[in-house]
C-alpha cells in the first residue's frame, strides 16, 4: 500500500480535473457540474480514507510514521528544485477532515445555490478550492505548500466576490485578497530566507530536509544581526503568513467582510478549511518553531509570540462577536476567536492540542454556518437577527442541529467535542509556566463564547417573530446597511409569508455534521488520547484514571463552570424576556451604551486602517505628485532657464565685448600705424635730423653720466 504514498497526488487531482471540466462547460450544464464536483470529492474522500488507514499502519513504524515521495521539478543553474508530498498522521487527519467537510458542503450548496444562474461557475471554483486545499495538506515542500496557499487565496477571492455585481462583495473580495496578500509577503520572505539558509525547501528529504534535525541545528544556532536565531526569525515570518490567512488580530479585518460570499463558501472556506490552513502551517513547521538550543525547553520566542497573538485574538474577537447583529458576522468573529484558541494551543501545548481543536472546530463551525445558511434561505435571504425570532417552530431540524452546534462551540461539558478540545488548550495554558495570563484570557474567552452563542440562538430561534413591515428599514440607524444593495431586505418589504424549512439536500449534511460534532470529542479525551497519540506516533490506551490526574481535574472544573456561567448569563439577559420589537435596543446596549457601540463598531479597526494605511497611501501619493510637479518639473524648468540665460550671455558677450572690442583695437592699431607712417616721410633729411637729435641725446646722456667720474 506504500504505493499510495507515491500516488498521493491523485487526491487533489480529482477535484482539479472536475474544476477544469466545469470551467469549460456552459452555464446550462448545471447537473453535470454538480455531479462532477460531488463525484470528485467523494473519490477524494475514499482515497483519503485509504491514506488514513496507511498512515495508521505506519504510525508506529520506522521514520516517525512518515512516507515521503520527492521528485525533481525545476532546474536552475546546476541546482535542482525538488517538490514532493508526504503522508504522515497530520496529513492523513487533515485529508479526511477536508474531503469529508468538503463533500458535505458540496451537497449542501447544490440545494443552496439551486436558483442561482452561475451554478456551474460556483462549482468550478469550489472544486478548484478543494483541489488547492488538498494539495496544500499533502505538500512536503514549502514551495508547493506556498503555491497551494496562493491558489487557496485566489479561490477565496473568487468565491467571496462570486456575486460581483454586489459592490460590497467585490470590495470584500479585494479586501480579503489584499490583507492575506500582506501576510503572504512575510510568508514569501520567510520561505526565501529559509531556502538561503538551509539550501532546500523540502520538509523531509531523507535527512536533508529543512525540518530535519541537521538543518534545524544549523538554523537554530546561527544568530541574525538583531540577536534572534535564524530559526526564530523564519518562524516569525511564516507565522505572519499564518496571521494573514487565519485572520489573527492585526489582519483579521477581512474575515467578517468575507461573509458577503454565499453561505456554503463561508462555511467551507472561512470556517473549516482555509482559515485553518494558517494553523496547519504552524503545525506543519512546528519543529522549526520549537527548534531551540535547549535553553528554553518548553517554548521558544516564536512559540511565545504565537501564544500571545492567539490569546489576544481570542478575547478581542469574542468581545466583538457579542455586539454583532448579522448572524454570519457573529459566526465569523467566533471563528476568529476559535482560531486564536487554536494558536494558543499550538503555542503552549504543541501540535496535537492545536490540531485536535482545529478538527473539532471545523465540523461544528461548518454545521453552524450551514445552519445559518438554511435559516437565511428560509427567511428569504434575511441575515439580520433582529428581524428573525421564534424560528424554532418553523425550522425544527435546523433548530436542532444548530443547537447541537452551538453547544459544541460553547463547549458544553462531557458530551460535545468542543469541550474536550478547548479543555486541552486550557490545560496546556494552565501548565504553561512562562505566564499565567494566556490561561486567564482563555477562560474569559470561553465564557464570552458561550455568552454570545446563547444571545444569537435566543435572538434567532426563541422570542417573538419580528419580521414585520417596511417602517423598520428606514429607521435603521447603524451604517450596517450597504447602500444600493439589492439585498433580501427589498424582498422582505414585499411579503410577510412564513419562514420555511430547507429541503432535505440541505438538512442532511446538517445532521451528519451534528453527529461528528458530538462523536469527535471522544477520540481526544484525556482518558483515551487516541488522537494525540496518533499524531505523535505512540500507541494510545484507555486509562480513565488519567482523567483524575492532579493537573487535569481542576482545569475541567474551571471550564465547565465558565461554560455554565456564560450560558446562564446569556439566557438571563436574552432568554428570559424575549425581544419583541426589532428596533428595540439590545440589552447590553442599555446597560453599557458606549461600550456596546464600541464593540458593535468592531473597535473602529476598519476606520483606523482606513485612516492609517489608506490615508498614508493617499498622503504619500499626494506628496509624490507634489514632488513630481514642483521638484522635478522645477529642475527641468531650471535647466532650460539656465541654458536660455547662458545663450543670452553668450550673445551679449559676443556682440559687445568681442566684436566691438576687436574693432576698437583694430582702429587703435591703424591709427597708431598712421601716426608712425607720417614719421616715414620719405625725406632723407628728416631721417638725418632725427639721427642728429638722437646723437645729441645720447651724447648728453653719456657726458652727463660720466660727469660724476
Amino acid at each position: 500500500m506504500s504505493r499510495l504514498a507515491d500516488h498521493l497526488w491523485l487526491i487533489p487531482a480529482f477535484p482539479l480535473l472536475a474544476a477544469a471540466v466545469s470551467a469549460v462547460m456552459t452555464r446550462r450544464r448545471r447537473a453535470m457540474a454538480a455531479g462532477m464536483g460531488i463525484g470528485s470529492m467523494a473519490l477524494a474522500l475514499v482515497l483519503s480514507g485509504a491514506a488514513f488507514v496507511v498512515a495508521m499502519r505506519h504510525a508506529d513504524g520506522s521514520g516517525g510514521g512518515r512516507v515521503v515521495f520527492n521528485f525533481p521539478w525545476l532546474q536552475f543553474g546546476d541546482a535542482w528544485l525538488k517538490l514532493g508530498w508526504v503522508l504522515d498522521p497530520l496529513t492523513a487527519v487533515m485529508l479526511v477532515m477536508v474531503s469529508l467537510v468538503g463533500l458535505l458542503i458540496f451537497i449542501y450548496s447544490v440545494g443552496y445555490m439551486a436558483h442561482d444562474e452561475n451554478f456551474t461557475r460556483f462549482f468550478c471554483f469550489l472544486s478548484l478550492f478543494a483541489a488547492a486545499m488538498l494539495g496544500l495538506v499533502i505538500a512536503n515542500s514549502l514551495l508547493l505548500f506556498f503555491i497551494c496557499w496562493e491558489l487557496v487565496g485566489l479561490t477565496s477571492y473568487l468565491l467571496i466576490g462570486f456575486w460581483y455585481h454586489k459592490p460590497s462583495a467585490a470590495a470584500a473580495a479585494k479586501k480579503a485578497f489584499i490583507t492575506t496578500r500582506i501576510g503572504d509577503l512575510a510568508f514569501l520572505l520567510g520561505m526565501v530566507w529559509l531556502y538561503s539558509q538551509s539550501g532546500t525547501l523540502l520538509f523531509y528529504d531523507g535527512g536533508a530536509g529543512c525540518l530535519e534535525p541537521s538543518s534545524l541545528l544549523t538554523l537554530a544556532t546561527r544568530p541574525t544581526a538583531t540577536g534572534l536565531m535564524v530559526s526564530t526569525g523564519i518562524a516569525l515570518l511564516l507565522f505572519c503568513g499564518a496571521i494573514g490567512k487565519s485572520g489573527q488580530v492585526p489582519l483579521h479585518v477581512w474575515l467578517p467582510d468575507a461573509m458577503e460570499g454565499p453561505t456554503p463558501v463561508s462555511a467551507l472556506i472561512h470556517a473549516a478549511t482555509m482559515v485553518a490552513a494558517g494553523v496547519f502551517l504552524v503545525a506543519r513547521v512546528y519543529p522549526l518553531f520549537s527548534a531551540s538550543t535547549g535553553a528554553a525547553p518548553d517554548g521558544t520566542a516564536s512559540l511565545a509570540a504565537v501564544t500571545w497573538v492567539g490569546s489576544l485574538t481570542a478575547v478581542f474577537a469574542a468581545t466583538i462577536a457579542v455586539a454583532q447583529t448579522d448572524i454570519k458576522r457573529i459566526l465569523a468573529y467566533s471563528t476568529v476567536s476559535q482560531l486564536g484558541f487554536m494558536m494558543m494551543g499550538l503555542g503552549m501545548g504543541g501540535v496535537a492540542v492545536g490540531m485536535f481543536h482545529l478538527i473539532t472546530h471545523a465540523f461544528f463551525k461548518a454545521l453552524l454556518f450551514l445552519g445559518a445558511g438554511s435559516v437565511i434561505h428560509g427567511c428569504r435571504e434575511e441575515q439580520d437577527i433582529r428581524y428573525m425570532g421564534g424560528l424554532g417552530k418553523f425550522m425544527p431540524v435546523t433548530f436542532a442541529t444548530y443547537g447541537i452546534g452551538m453547544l459544541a462551540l460553547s463547549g458544553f461539558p462531557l458530551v460535545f467535542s468542543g469541550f474536550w478540545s478547548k479543555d486541552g488548550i486550557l490545560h496546556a495554558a494552565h501548565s504553561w509556566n512562562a505566564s499565567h495570563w494566556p490561561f486567564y484570557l482563555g477562560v474569559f474567552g470561553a465564557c464570552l463564547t458561550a455568552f454570545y452563542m446563547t444571545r444569537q440562538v435566543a435572538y434567532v430561534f426563541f422570542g417573538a417573530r419580528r419580521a414585520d413591515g417596511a417602517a423598520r428599514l428606514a429607521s435603521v440607524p447603524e451604517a450596517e446597511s450597504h447602500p444600493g444593495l439589492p439585498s433580501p431586505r427589498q424582498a422582505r418589504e414585499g411579503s410577510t409569508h412564513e419562514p420555511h424549512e430547507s429541503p432535505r439536500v440541505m438538512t442532511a449534511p446538517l445532521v451528519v455534521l451534528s453527529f461528528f460534532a458530538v462523536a469527535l470529542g471522544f477520540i481526544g479525551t484525556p482518558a483515551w488520547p487516541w488522537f494525540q497519540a496518533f499524531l505523535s506516533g505512540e500507541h494510545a490506551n484507555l486509562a480513565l484514571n488519567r482523567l483524575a490526574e492532579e493537573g487535569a481535574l481542576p482545569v475541567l472544573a474551571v471550564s465547565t463552570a465558565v461554560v455554565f456561567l456564560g450560558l446562564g448569563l446569556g439566557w438571563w439577559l436574552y432568554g428570559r424576556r424575549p425581544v419583541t420589537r426589532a428596533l428595540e435596543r439590545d440589552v447590553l446596549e442599555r446597560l453599557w451604551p458606549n461600550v456596546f457601540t464600541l464593540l458593535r463598531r468592531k473597535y473602529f479597526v476598519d476606520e483606523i486602517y482606513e485612516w492609517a494605511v489608506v490615508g498614508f497611501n493617499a498622503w504619500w501619493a499626494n506628496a509624490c505628485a507634489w514632488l513630481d510637479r514642483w521638484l522635478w518639473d522645477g529642475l527641468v524648468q531650471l535647466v532650460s532657464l539656465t541654458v536660455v540665460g547662458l545663450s543670452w550671455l553668450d550673445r551679449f558677450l559676443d556682440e559687445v565685448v568681442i566684436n566691438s572690442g576687436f574693432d576698437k583695437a583694430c582702429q587703435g592699431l591703424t591709427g597708431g600705424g598712421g601716426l608712425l607712417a607720417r614719421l616715414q616721410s620719405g625725406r632723407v633729411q628728416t631721417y638725418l635730423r632725427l639721427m642728429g637729435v638722437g646723437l645729441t641725446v645720447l651724447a648728453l646722456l653719456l657726458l652727463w653720466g660720466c660727469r660724476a667720474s
Partner: protein
Amino acid sequence: MTSLQAYLLLSALLFAIGLAGALARRNAIIVLIGIELMLNAANLNFIAFWRFGPNPEALTGVLFAIFSIGIAAAEAAVGLALVISIYRHQKTTDLGQVDSLKG
C-alpha cells in the same frame, strides 16, 4: 685749452658744419658733400687722439683713419652713383621732391 682740445673743437665744428649743410641744403650732392665733411671730421678726431693719445706707436688711430678714408671713398662713389640714377629717373636731385619711398 690744450692743443688736443683745439683739434677736437675743430673737428666738432667741421662736423657741425657738415651736419648743418646735410640737414639744410636741398640738393642731394651737397648733402653728400656734407657727409664727406662729417667723415673727415671723424678722421681728424682719430688722428688727434692718436697724436695726443697714451701710446702713439700702436698706430691704431692712423690705421683707423686710413681705412675710414678708403671706405669714405667707396661710400662717396656709391652715393654719387645713386644720386645720378635717381636724377635719371626723376630728373631732379632736390631731396624735397625725392620722397616716394614713404609709409
